[in-house]
């Protein structure tokens, strides 16, 4: 199972510290959602003993600027996510196959409907269930977050759209073990297996994209390999 984290300087712990903490709490890997972070991935992987995925999160105020960033960042990173939070950004993310994950779709003024989840299912864009506000906020803010999660859960299940789960930690202190996230998910209405699948999905995505970026890959179903016969 993998967790996707915000590493220093976006967050307040470095990629190496995240990896060390994640290894201790039972993760198989961490996805570094870097905007400005440029860790030495090989060294971090070796030091922590778990997989470390080079990712980027596009945070833009509108789809026009997000589109430019997606084009620029896609070739350089294994995994690319777009932060939602407005209806236009959510729509932009699910309509583009080049985007791997739409994060925080229900944050701020963002909303999702059946059209968007169907579109996400068609384009293979993963929708993120953000457990951050459930873990770290209280009162009205948490109630709104839970309401958003519930709506998203029902829509994603109906459209059979792919999804990921994350606690969106910004420091190693905000990281929670997979079993803890499963327990929280159960309390707020998620099936335990759904949460586990959502945490595993980050790893599956990273593996798929690494394979696609490898030299032997030409297109889906077309590979360069040894000629038989």
């Amino acid at each position: 199972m993998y967790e996707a984290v915000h590493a220093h300087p976006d967050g307040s712990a470095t990629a190496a510290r995240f990896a060390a903490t994640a290894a201790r709490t039972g993760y198989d890997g961490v996805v570094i959602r870097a905007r400005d972070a440029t860790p030495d991935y090989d060294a971090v992987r070796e030091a922590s003993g778990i997989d470390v995925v080079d990712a980027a999160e596009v945070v833009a105020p509108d789809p026009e600027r997000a589109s430019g960033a997606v084009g620029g960042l896609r070739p350089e990173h294994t995994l690319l996510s777009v932060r939602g939070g407005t209806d236009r950004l959510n729509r932009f993310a699910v309509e583009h196959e080049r985007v791997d994950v739409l994060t925080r779709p229900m944050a701020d003024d963002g909303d999702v409907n059946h059209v968007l989840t169907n579109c996400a299912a068609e384009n293979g864009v993963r929708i993120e269930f953000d457990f951050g506000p459930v873990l770290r906020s209280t009162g009205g803010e948490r109630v709104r977050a839970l309401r958003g999660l519930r709506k998203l859960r029902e829509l994603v299940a109906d459209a059979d759209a792919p999804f990921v789960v994350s606690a969106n930690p910004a420091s190693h202190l905000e990281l929670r073990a997979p079993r803890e996230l499963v327990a929280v998910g159960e309390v707020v209405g998620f099936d335990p297996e759904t949460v586990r699948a959502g945490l595993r999905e980050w790893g599956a995505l990273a593996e798929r994209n690494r394979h696609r970026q490898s030299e032997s890959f030409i297109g889906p179903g077309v590979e360069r390999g040894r000629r038989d016969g």
Partner: protein
Amino acid sequence: MKHLPKHLQPRWRYLAVGLEAWPDADLTRGDFQRAVWYAAGNLLGDPGSADADLRVLSFEFGAGAGAAVVRVRRGEVGPARAALACVSEVNGHPVGLWVRGVSGTVRACEERYLGRRAGVRAERRVVFENDRRRGYVRDGNVDVAGPKGFTGAAELDLESEST
């Protein structure tokens, strides 16, 4: 009051909880107990919180790391885990915590999961992002003090001092 016959006594499970915070955090058992009750009350509601009946039995914390034993009613370990995961701050200090294990007795819990105390902490000058800072080092992890609070780092992130 006369104590209950054995078959009517509540059955407990004991969670060994590892704790972590920034080096300047100062936590007491009371603070942690309050944070746990608050988190359980908010997440599970009053009935769920009463069912889980979370109580911090032993607590040790110093210099940014610690451990606690939390008692919970048998059968409520899942909700208790969830409530503990929602403890994000204790007395205004952000904390990280994870359940190291669950046991049926306090003794087993302490022996099996809390046997090793947190490693020795050292304080030294480190070079982080081309800047000399104060670092608190433990087990290869370093909390680096900076103008905007601490940054969690590992030995890997430090640059060797050239001077």
